[in-house]
Every structure is written in structure tokens, then in C-alpha cells.
């Protein structure tokens, strides 16, 4: 039972990091119909920026987090303006390839700046263990769950109540109608990328604390796809639920079944969801018959 509890906490904390990355993916998809294959690299950028701010520059962690998020947002705004804006309205294959190209550029640049070897900095999430009943849990992992949930809830509230959030929903609903109501689409696209980068940066900061800083972090970018397809491509709530389910599934399968099946099980889920319910658990049901 204590093993089960440990697995659950570990799965949920991984799942919440997936959810943070997935939420950014969802925001970009919702606003601009772009499928962002560089989401994992934004996460990677977050881990290296916090390493840069805390370990290399020596800022206190609170300031470091702020600097990390701001820098990540700046990079994302530049990407949106320079790379994505000229391609508005291009076919899906161009959108996919341009973000794949971006991912390659980001990874190359990060490796060139910080080198390929794993780095570490002193974790500022509490490092000790939490003993709940029979189970021993890593405090950082436990703590990461409410942090992620708070950020995701913030994103949800943003969509519901702020002017930009409502504008984003309007654009997702009907771009032309939104334009005719005086909504500035370039601004909304910029905000979407900024938010995606911020949420990925926070995910990256937590990853940096829990597992350290290494180029392998970018592999999580691919885990985003099962998460968003399961949750629904245009739903933040879906990203949270999908992230939790995929995270839990991975650790349970990894422990109880083994054989490396945990690596492939998210994709099996993905295929099944696509076959049965392509719009996912919470996605908007768009009926498009082929």
C-alpha cells in the first residue's frame, strides 16, 4: 500500500509537469491552430534558465524564478513574431515542420551555450522526505503538485475573466467574427505564446529541482501529445486530467508490468483515443467526416 502511495505521488507529480507543458500546447493551439512540437524545448529552456539564474548568476530563488519566466516569455514572443507570424494561414504541414525546426534550433542553441552534460543546482524546493503513514515521499514531488495545480488554475481563470483570455476564446471560436469585433489577432497570438512559455518555464523550474538539468528533459515534449489528445486538444482542464492519467499510467505500468512498457503505453492510449473519441475527454466536438 505504501508503494502504491509512493507511485501515485510520483505519477501525479510527473503528470502535473506534463500538464504544465500540455497547457502551454493547448493555449497555443486554441489561439492560433499551431501544433507546437517545440513545447518540450520550452520546458528545456526553463530548466536551463533557472540553472543560469540561480547557479550561475547567484540570484536568490524567488528572483531567479521571476527572471526565468520573463526570459522564457521574451524568447517565446520573439519566436512568435519572427517565425510564426509570417506563416499565418499556411497548411498544417508547414506549421508542424516550422515548430520542429524551432525545436531543433532551440536544442542546438541550448547545447551550444550550456554543453551536453547534465548540470545540477541546489534545489530550492524542500529536499527532505515526507512521511505520511507508512509511505516515504519526496517533499519536492509532493509540493510540485499543488504548485502546478495553482498555475493551471491561474491559466483557467485567465481564460474565464481577463480581457485577453476572453479575446483568445473568441478567436478560437470564430476568427473572422473576433476580428470584426476589434480584437487584435497578433496581440492575442503573442499573449498565447507568452503564456505557453511561462507555463512551460514553471514546469521546467520544477523539473530542474526534482530531476536536475539535462538535455534529456526535451523528451517530455513528445509525452505532451498523448496528454493533449486524451484530454482534448483545446481544453486546459483536459490537459490537467490527461496529464494526471498519463503520469499515473506510466508509473503503475512501469512498476506492476515492467518490460519497458511504460514507455509505450501513452502512445497506445493515444491510438485508442484517436480511434474512439478523437476530440478527447473535454475537447470541443468538431464533427468532420473524412
Amino acid at each position, binding site marked *: 500500500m505504501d508503494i502504491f502511495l509512493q507511485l501515485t505521488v510520483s505519477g501525479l507529480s510527473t503528470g502535473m509537469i506534463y500538464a504544465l507543458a500540455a497547457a502551454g500546447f493547448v493555449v497555443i493551439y486554441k489561439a492560433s491552430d499551431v*501544433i507546437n512540437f517545440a513545447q518540450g524545448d520550452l520546458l528545456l529552456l526553463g530548466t536551463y534558465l533557472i540553472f543560469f539564474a540561480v547557479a550561475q548568476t547567484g540570484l536568490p530563488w524567488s528572483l531567479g524564478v521571476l527572471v526565468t519566466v520573463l526570459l522564457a516569455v521574451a524568447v517565446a514572443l520573439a519566436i512568435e513574431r519572427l*517565425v510564426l507570424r*509570417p*506563416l499565418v494561414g*499556411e497548411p*498544417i*504541414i*508547414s506549421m*508542424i*515542420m*516550422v515548430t*520542429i*525546426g*524551432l*525545436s*531543433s*534550433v*532551440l*536544442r*542546438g*542553441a541550448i*547545447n*551550444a551555450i550550456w554543453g551536453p552534460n547534465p548540470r545540477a543546482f541546489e534545489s530550492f524546493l524542500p529536499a527532505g522526505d515526507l512521511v505520511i503513514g507508512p509511505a516515504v515521499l519526496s517533499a519536492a514531488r509532493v509540493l510540485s503538485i499543488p504548485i502546478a495545480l495553482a498555475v493551471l488554475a491561474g491559466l483557467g481563470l485567465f481564460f474565464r475573466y481577463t480581457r485577453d483570455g476572453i479575446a483568445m476564446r473568441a478567436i478560437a471560436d470564430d476568427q473572422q467574427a473576433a476580428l470584426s469585433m476589434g480584437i487584435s489577432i497578433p496581440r492575442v497570438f503573442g499573449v498565447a505564446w507568452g503564456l505557453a512559455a511561462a507555463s512551460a518555464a514553471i514546469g521546467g523550474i520544477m523539473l530542474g529541482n526534482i530531476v536536475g538539468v539535462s538535455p534529456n528533459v526535451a523528451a517530455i515534449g*513528445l509525452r505532451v*501529445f*498523448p496528454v493533449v*489528445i486524451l484530454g482534448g486538444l483545446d481544453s486546459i482542464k483536459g490537459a490537467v486530467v490527461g496529464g494526471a492519467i498519463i503520469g499515473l499510467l506510466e508509473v503503475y505500468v512501469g512498476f506492476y508490468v515492467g*518490460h*519497458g512498457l511504460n*514507455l*509505450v503505453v501513452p*502512445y*497506445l492510449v*493515444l*491510438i485508442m483515443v*484517436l*480511434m474512439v473519441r*478523437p476530440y478527447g475527454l473535454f475537447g470541443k466536438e468538431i464533427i*468532420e467526416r*473524412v
Partner: protein
Amino acid sequence: MSMECGVFHTRYESDMGLRPRPAQRIRLAVLALFVLVFPFVASTYWLDLANQVAIATVGAIGLNILVGYTGQISLGQGAFMAIGAYTAGLLTLNFGVPWGASVFCACILTAVAGTFFGLPSLRLKGLYLAIATLAAQEIVEWAMTHWTTVTGGTEAIVVPAPRLFGLRLNTTFNFYWLAVLTAAGTALFAANLFRSRIGRAFEAVRDQDIAASVIGVDVFRTKLLAFATSSFFVGLAGAMIAFYRNIVTWERFTLNTSIVYLAMIIVGGLGSIRGSFLGAALITLLPALITNLGRAIQDTAPQAASLLPYAQQAVFGIVIILFLIFEPRGLSKLWENVKDYFHVWPFAYRRGESRAN
């Protein structure tokens, strides 16, 4: 195929010819001559690169049939190449099948697998299909590394060298002829495919699938056929790699492979045979060029040289992005622009109007 001014056909045969104009024939002859002379003057290093380009051309044409001509996005190229390579390698290694037969079996099996992975295209379009093929890629990758009884897992399998008339075929020089012939044959087949009813149906499905079904194209059947045809050649490319390299390892067939091949057809030009070749050449040669550049500056700037592996990765991405932004129709279109310029040279219309067609 665009009409060109100043070209008059007096017979249907010449109108339907693949290369009706003298200039085209001369260019083809020059290319053929170059291909014939190249292996006798080039070093082993460049010959090896040429072989890689030829294999990549076969794979890129295969992928272009699916993505460029039929509009079905696939991120599963690496997986299909893996199926081709492992089938060819294992058949020859374990059952002693002659290499020619096992290459053929590999192509057929890859075509069958491609058709199976194409089944989701019944329901899924565009982005969803791309993600489904991404999942297929991941699943095949997992099978390669974990289904140890068949694939040997992460260990490489060693394939016996192919022989013809007592000649070892996979030396760089001997393989060159095989690879070039295969690439040329593939290009010829694809060029003719898109002049046929089936190829036109592929393009109709890409441009407007509903309209295609209205004019009597069975959309689902056409899509599956596109998946099968495409995977046949992708499997061929995989099998060629198996026999050329003598070993089959999973590292050659990861998601990264899929991305590299997609980059080839984007950079070369979607829906263009010439583009598949140009893209395959550029993307294959790019890392080699950067490595050579690194060697050249090793002494003067060792710092910069150590950054080159990452520069390679970044340049790969930058090339994709620049092409998408500035020339989405790729190298193939650039080449056409050059041709059109010289077509009427030196008596061009006023600048900017020479392309009014």
C-alpha cells in the same frame, strides 16, 4: 505541368513525353554523364555520401508520394524504414533468403504495414493523422528495442553482404551503381505514376477530398493505395540501408529519421520528384559540409569548432524555417525560377513580368 511559350507540339507523342524539349534532354544527358563519371574521379568519402544521397532520394520520393502528392502527413517514416531494414536483414540472416528476394519481401511487407497504419486516415485528417503516425513511430521504436527475440533489441544485427556474380555489392563503388539505378528507377516510376489515373487521384484527394469523391475517386481506397505505394519505396530505402551498411540498428530509424526525411521534402519541394532528390541531397550533405567546415577552422578557432555539432542541429532547424518562410515550394521552385530566367535570356520581359503566366 505548365505550358511554356515557344514550345509547339505537332504530335501527341511529343506532347505527352516526359522530357519533350531539347534543353531538357541535354540537361538529362549532362546529368547522366556526371553520374557515370563521378565514381571514377570521386574519393571514397564523396562516393559514400553519394550513396547516402541515392538511398535518401528513394526514401524521400516515397515520403513525398504520401505527404506531398496525397496530402497525408506522416511522422512514421523512420518506423517504415525500420520495417524494411529489419525484414530484409532478418530474412537474409536467419533464413538465407537471397538478398534480392529479401529486399522485395521487405518492400511488400512495408507496404502492408503502411496500409495498416494508413487505416486511421479513414477517420483522421491533417494534424490528428500526424499525431497518430507519431504514435505508430513510437510503438515501432519500442518494438525494435524491446522485442528482443526477433530484432535483437538494442544490439545491432549483422547482415551478410549481398553478392552478384561473385562480386561483393556493398563496397562504396559497387553499391553506387545499384543505388543510382534504384533511385533513377524510383524517380521514373513516380514521375509516370503522377501522369496516370491513380496518381491524379492522389493529387485530387490532396487538393480537395470531397470534390475528389464527387468526381468518382474512392477517397479511402486512394489514401490506402498512397500509403501502400509510399511505404513500398520507404521500405526499399530501409532495405538498401540494411545491405549497404551490413548492420541494422534501431538508432537509424528513430523519430529523428522521420523528421529528417520530412525536412528533405519540405526543403526540396512538396509534390515534386526533382525536389525529393534536391532535398535529399541538401539535407544529407549539410552535416558533412558543416563537419568539413569544422575541420577547416579547427586550428584557427578550436573554440568554434567544438560548437559545431550543435551548430549542425541549429542550422538544420534554421534551413527548414527559412525555406518555409521564404520559399515554401522549396529548391525545386528555385531551380524552376533559374530555368525560367534563362529560358528567355537575354531577351527577358521587364523585370518582374517575366513570370506572368
